[in-house]
């Protein structure tokens, strides 16, 4: 049974919709810049969405308080949903994912609480991650199966996978899946405390990489089964054909040096898609720009693809690492690669990692034969996920 991708939506540091993201990718225009909107003590490099909360609330006409995570999610979810209608014969669900949930509001509440005896407690009501998703569901009039996954940086790749499984097991006919995370002081301080926040531009897969730059945003995709598209008449943009999640079981935050979990995830996704490693046309790597991830991921790529590693790149130098949203933002980019037969460039790269000597694609390449795209997402807790998309 085919799982069709019939809608895509994205908001990130490089654009407020799919078209703007596509143009920025093509023009090699990064969205990473010194902090502008978030109230943070230093001018760190971040991938901010260039709209304030007030602008988003006014644009979307939603009630407050609402977390920025929900606001970004609503923008991308609405774009992916498009003009689709609810239909009594199409069982429709929503699976979103987030790592911070409403932390953007919670940290404001907590700051107020430290300073004054009557903080605005309405700010804490958006804390729970499930609430973030319910706000998105409400905007789209979806009720029924509404779920949120939270597995750190692999969250939304897992939402894609769960959505596909729900369709394949005939639990739903159509499912909007996505991920959303907003920038917060909490996460910035977190990655700084781990000493993996780069004070320079992120350089995925480069020997001299110094860590990640955080970003924010949301990506959503609409998945449908045969029955659903026979009723909606939607034209498939791509087909989701492989997925897998495996645990590294090595360390709470670090990836194993032998790339065990990542290797398993890639191998099992290929098996699920019934594809050989040589069938993969392009890999959108996780490539966060941390010393540990990029090495471990390179080792995993070598484990699976041996000497014939397909063209690969990380788009983190455009968007920053958008954590839970990265899986679906990059899945949208994978759809673009299939639709336009392109390979996306890996910015800021100059020198191969000495241990593995892998060289990512650094140019925007058109007229490529892209039949399949493999996309990796790896998270804390050794949570490794891979999805594979193919041409519709």
């Amino acid at each position, binding site marked *: 049974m085919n799982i069709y991708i019939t809608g895509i939506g994205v908001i990130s540091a490089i654009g407020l919709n799919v078209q703007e993201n596509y143009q920025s990718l093509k023009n090699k225009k990064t969205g990473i810049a010194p902090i502008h909107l978030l109230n943070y003590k230093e001018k760190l490099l971040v991938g901010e969405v260039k709209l304030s909360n007030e602008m988003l609330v006014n644009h979307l006409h939603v009630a407050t308080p609402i977390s920025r995570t929900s606001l970004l999610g609503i923008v991308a979810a609405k774009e992916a949903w498009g003009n689709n209608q609810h239909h009594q014969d199409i069982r429709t669900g929503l699976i979103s994912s987030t790592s911070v949930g409403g932390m953007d509001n919670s940290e404001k509440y907590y700051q107020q609480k430290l300073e004054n005896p009557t903080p605005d407690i309405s700010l804490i009501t958006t804390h729970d991650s499930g609430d973030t998703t319910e706000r998105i569901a409400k905007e789209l009039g979806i009720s029924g199966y509404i779920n949120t996954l939270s*597995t750190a940086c692999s969250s939304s790749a897992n939402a894609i996978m769960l959505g596909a499984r729900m369709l394949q097991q005939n639990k739903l006919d159509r499912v909007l899946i996505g991920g959303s995370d907003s920038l917060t002081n909490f996460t910035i301080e977190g990655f700084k*405390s781990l000493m993996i926040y780069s004070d320079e531009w992120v350089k995925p897969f480069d020997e001299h990489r110094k860590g990640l730059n955080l970003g924010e945003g949301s990506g959503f995709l609409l998945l449908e089964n045969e029955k659903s598209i026979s009723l909606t008449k939607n034209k498939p943009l791509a087909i989701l054909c492989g997925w897998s999640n495996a645990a590294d079981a090595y360390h709470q935050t670090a990836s194993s040096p032998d790339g065990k979990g990542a290797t398993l995830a890639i191998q099992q996704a290929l098996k699920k898609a019934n594809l050989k490693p040589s069938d993969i046309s392009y890999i959108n790597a996780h490539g966060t720009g941390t010393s540990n991830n990029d090495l471990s991921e390179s080792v995993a790529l070598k484990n699976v693809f041996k000497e014939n590693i397909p063209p690969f790149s990380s788009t983190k130098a455009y968007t920053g690492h958008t954590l839970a949203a990265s899986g679906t933002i990059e899945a949208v980019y994978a759809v673009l690669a299939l639709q336009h037969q392109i390979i996306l460039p890996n910015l800021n790269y100059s020198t191969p990692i000495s241990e593995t000597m892998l060289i990512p694609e650094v140019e925007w390449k058109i007229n490529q034969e892209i039949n399949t795209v493999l996309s990796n997402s790896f998270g804390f807790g050794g949570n490794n996920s891979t999805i594979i998309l193919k041409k519709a």
Partner: protein
Amino acid sequence: MYYINACSTISHQGSFQNESWINELKIVTNNSKLITPNYKEFVDAADLRRMSKIIRMGIACSKDCIQQAEIDNPDAIIVGTGLGCLTDTEKFLHNTLTIEGLIPPTAFIQSTHNTIAGQISLALKNHQYNMTHTQNSLSFEHALMDGMLCLDEEKDTVLVGSADENIALMDELSKSFNWSEIENKLTSGASFFIVSNAKNNLTKVQLIDCFTVGLNDTNPKALITSFLAKNNLSLNDIDLVLFNSNGTLKLDIIQKEFNPISVLSYEHFCGYYFTNVAFGMHLATEILNKKKTSFITNNKPVHRILLYNNFNNKNIGLTLLQALEA
């Protein structure tokens, strides 16, 4: 077919590694304490020091389940949590706002929701599917439904559970919000299960189905009827409805709603936390497995229990369990 082959719960009851706990049920009061095991039996002392309550509970229940089910390692680890690792989240948040300069990373590392499932995979050296669901009061059901999907795919035995921890800030907030509908103590708890597609001599009950409706706008009774009909059953086939009551008002409504079926609130026995329905599932399993009739009108035999999660009005969870001989 799905079967529950092991259960493990840490709660206000002496439920952990105690076969007869349902004979000694006590109502949770403001003074009752969580009854916790000696965690050193489950976690290395050096690791234990760093771990918050929610992670300790998760690991202890998981290891206990695996021991009970006599399996080496499950084919998947799936956890539901309503609010995740609150202790570490609050600790790191506090540190970011009060410490100038370098902040220790441990609380941040352990603040993500999937720390529980991740730490279980580390403790078991398990490389399989590892997932964390967080949909407030439906987090456990969504983990369970994911486990059932796994069993319908290629997996045979899955570890499914949920954990939530209370922190002082929650008590403070509940007062500020004047959450008058909450009568039971805000607390912590964890329940884990081994669910399998095969029955063996350790199997406790059969899990028939699980279903959720988020942002529900339909009459719950109609949802229940259609859920049962989907499983070729009707309300007459149900011997006991276990539900989530925070107050006597709700109890009256539920009693009238399901009359003449017996009803029982599980929340009185475990307190208030987002995923307390998992405690309800363990309780239901024991009632069916031990043929405990004291909760049923006229002490009739109990074959099927409907677990009706009405923790909040907008999100409804339905889980159906059946005794093995039924």
